[in-house]
């Protein structure tokens, strides 16, 4: 604040735009240099980091899948041995679920939600910084372990006893379980931030029925995270305890139970699918609205569908255990509930169709991806209905049919909208447009490559090919289709490669975007691209769900202090102003806290005493984090 520190309690009311920008920049700005970079709590910088890191993991996971396809392209191939192959498929699943899919969705929300609700930073910005460091540390732990041949080899759901103390030898399964802890901590932190941001920091006037659908979907997702992830925390902790200090949670000889693991895992694992899928639904809704030039048909129905999907998500976990030998009656209940989730899913599809029907679709790349999403996801939904039926599932469970099913749901249902969302929001994040020509190629390659790769897997599954096999014998009639799948995977991979090229090219040389290149309706487009460090010069006020379509000028509020980071806290339901709350300044302590926590978690793979001694630095770091340092933001 060299250029004249603002006097205490200076308000934005009397300042003109240029002066206000100068004041706000001086207090919200993240300075250059490494120290400032690791201390920042700006949700845009952290969100961007999060997104990039998650995409790096996506590409690494993609390389693993190509390795698997290489090995499976021929029967009894010997490119990769069984031990390494088991690590590769476990890494692929674990990496994609825990280091890519969940984090990337939360990362998009970390970047976008504060902008979409019209506030200046996410709630608990330091927790946000901490969550990123934890995520990064977990990812590094997993990949370093894999690099030195200690990667987990028990599958991404690590069934005991294979992952248990007796059969999961070495530290491989411990690394898997502890990586879970890292990513769960980070996901839970982000979920809390998002819930509070959405509840308490919405622009005045943004009552519940004016919240953008993407924000709604992130709210439901965050609640799913909050309620589902404790299950996996408990499960992975008990697994580590079984392995390290000899507890008997999963030991049938001493009163434990093998299926307890499966219950706990899938009680988390099924909502996990919706944790990945619901944000994508929100992205699709946003893109559909923008590129048809009208609000999504059936706003209330869409919100209700999101919420009911979230609730039903907790009633389905047993359909992953239909062949484990549970009582038939219970299984029948889970068949019914699993089928029932098709209704809200169908409702959403119909609403999008109605929107497309009544609107005027503009076929830009983001919309292409959403159309591809609808085509693909409906197939995934149909196969979902199939595996929801107990008898049907007994034939396809744990086969390539299921592999095809969940790739249709996760790539078709989540990655397609995500790629559309990247094309859609890239101009906002970087201030530059991505290439429309390349975008069409990317879409074509990925869409065609995807279906050529994964559709044949349905047939392979029905033809009896179990999943997670590192090879198969030549006399089995699978080699032709497997070769086709492997070749198609190259097409899919080339699509992703082209996408990466487009990203790099556009980030450097893309044409300038302007603040609202698509003519979209939501608040993030009301500010500059990329947004300034303080997001909005003055806090926006909204009077409808599509503020940028209904008003010619941005309605704003004034009266906030400019000598400290101030934003607005509003009421949960009606979003009426409640307080001018201050947002915390940059701090290095979240990084130290993450380092200390990482040390405890990794150390405790080796000895339980790590928890005792390692907690001391964690306590010190947290105290340093919360102890006031005399900044104006720390006073009321």
């Amino acid at each position: 604040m060299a250029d004249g520190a603002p006097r205490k309690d200076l308000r934005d009311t009397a300042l003109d735009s240029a002066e206000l920008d100068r004041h706000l920049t001086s207090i919200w700005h993240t300075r250059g240099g490494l120290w400032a970079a690791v201390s920042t709590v700006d949700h845009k910088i952290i969100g961007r980091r999060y997104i990039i890191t998650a995409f790096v993991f996506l590409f690494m996971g993609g390389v693993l899948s190509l390795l698997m396809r290489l090995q499976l392209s021929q029967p009894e191939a010997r490119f990769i041995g069984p031990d390494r192959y088991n690590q590769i498929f476990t890494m692929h699943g674990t990496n994609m679920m825990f280091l890519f899919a969940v984090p990337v969705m939360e990362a998009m929300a970390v970047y976008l939600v504060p902008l979409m609700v019209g506030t200046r930073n996410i709630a608990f910005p330091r927790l946000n910084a901490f969550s990123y460091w934890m995520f990064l540390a977990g990812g590094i732990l997993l990949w370093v372990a894999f690099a030195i041949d200690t990667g987990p080899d028990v599958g991404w759901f690590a069934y005991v006893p294979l992952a248990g103390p007796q059969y999961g030898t070495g530290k491989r399964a411990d690394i898997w379980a502890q990586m879970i802890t890292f990513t769960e901590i980070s996901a839970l932190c982000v979920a809390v931030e998002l819930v509070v941001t959405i509840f308490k920091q919405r622009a005045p006037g943004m009552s519940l029925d004016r919240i953008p659908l993407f924000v709604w979907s992130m709210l439901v997702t965050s609640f799913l995270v909050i309620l589902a992830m404790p299950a996996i925390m408990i499960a992975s902790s008990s697994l580590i305890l079984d392995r390290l200090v000899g507890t008997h949670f999963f030991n049938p000889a001493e009163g434990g139970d093998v299926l307890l693991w499966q219950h706990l895992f899938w009680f988390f694992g099924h909502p996990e699918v919706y944790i990945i899928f619901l944000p994508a639904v929100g992205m699709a809704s946003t893109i559909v609205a923008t590129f048809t030039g009208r609000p999504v048909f059936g706003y209330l129905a869409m919100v209700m569908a999101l919420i009911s999907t979230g609730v039903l998500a907790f009633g389905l976990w047993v359909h992953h255990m239909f062949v484990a030998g549970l009582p038939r009656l219970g299984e029948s209940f889970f068949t019914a509930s699993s089928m029932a989730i098709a209704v809200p899913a169908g409702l959403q599809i119909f609403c999008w169709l109605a929107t497309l029907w009544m609107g005027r679709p503009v076929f830009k790349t983001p919309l292409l991806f959403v159309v591809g999403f609808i085509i693909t996801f409906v197939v995934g939904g149909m196969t979902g209905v199939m595996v929801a039926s107990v008898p049907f599932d007994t034939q396809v469970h744990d086969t390539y049919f299921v592999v095809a099913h969940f790739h249709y749901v996760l790539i078709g249902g989540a990655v397609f909208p995500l790629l559309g969302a990247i094309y859609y929001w890239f101009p906002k994040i970087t201030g530059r447009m991505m290439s429309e020509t390349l975008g069409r190629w990317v879409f074509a390659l990925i869409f065609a490559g995807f279906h050529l790769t994964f559709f044949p897997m349905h047939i392979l599954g029905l033809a009896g090919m179990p999943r997670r096999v590192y090879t198969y014998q030549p006399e089995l009639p699978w080699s032709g289709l497997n070769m086709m799948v492997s070749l198609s995977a190259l097409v899919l991979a080339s699509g992703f490669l082209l996408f990466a090229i487009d990203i790099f090219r556009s980030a450097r040389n893309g044409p300038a975007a302007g603040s609202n290149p698509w003519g979209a309706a939501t608040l993030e487009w009301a500010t500059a691209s990329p947004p300034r460090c303080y997001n909005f010069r003055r806090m926006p006020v909204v009077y409808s769900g599509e503020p940028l379509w209904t008003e010619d000028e941005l309605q704003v509020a004034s009266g906030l202090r400019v000598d400290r980071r101030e934003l607005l806290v509003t009421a949960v339901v009606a979003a009426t102003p409640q307080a001018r709350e201050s947002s915390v300044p940059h701090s290095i302590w979240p990084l130290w806290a993450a380092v200390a926590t990482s040390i405890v978690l990794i150390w405790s793979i080796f000895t339980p005493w790590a928890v005792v001694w390692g907690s001391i630095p964690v306590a010190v770091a947290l105290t340093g984090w919360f102890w006031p340092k005399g900044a104006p933001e720390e006073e009321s």
Partner: protein
Amino acid sequence: MVLALLGWIDQPRKFRVDPAITAELDQIRLMPNGIGGAPPEIDFALGQPYENDSYNLSQGKRLYTWFGCSSCHGDGRGAAGPSFLDGWWLYGPEMVSIVASIRDGRPHGMPAFQNRMTIEQIWQLAGYVQTIGAYRAKVSAPSRNDAKHTRPSENRAPAAIIFDEGPVGVDPEQGPNP
């Protein structure tokens, strides 16, 4: 440092050991009294995998069950045969001695296993037996089995936990002197 640590806890698993190497593993030189001796060079060249590698140790643990060791040695605390946990190693705690005991048998009831196990299996088993009795648990030591709990598992250094029980189950005929 983390890299080094992780590299040390788990080497790539080798399932097939070259016959030339297994033949070398057979070349142990024992002192005339049968206690202690020099392990084969190849053991060092490989990085003592039968003592440090978690896969070999857990295979050893399976062999312990499969070859009925527990019928005389119990869960390691001995029965008809001596205990591995009480600090008394009748022929010393070195791998060579344990390998020799398993391979060639010992007086007072320990049978020779050379015609029942391959030499590689004997090394795996010996590594495991040595681990049961270790006073400081190896990082690569196996955890508990999915079975009845009779003593703390090897990765918790049962010898250190239950040493107070003293020498148990030693056949009086066997005595401390071989």
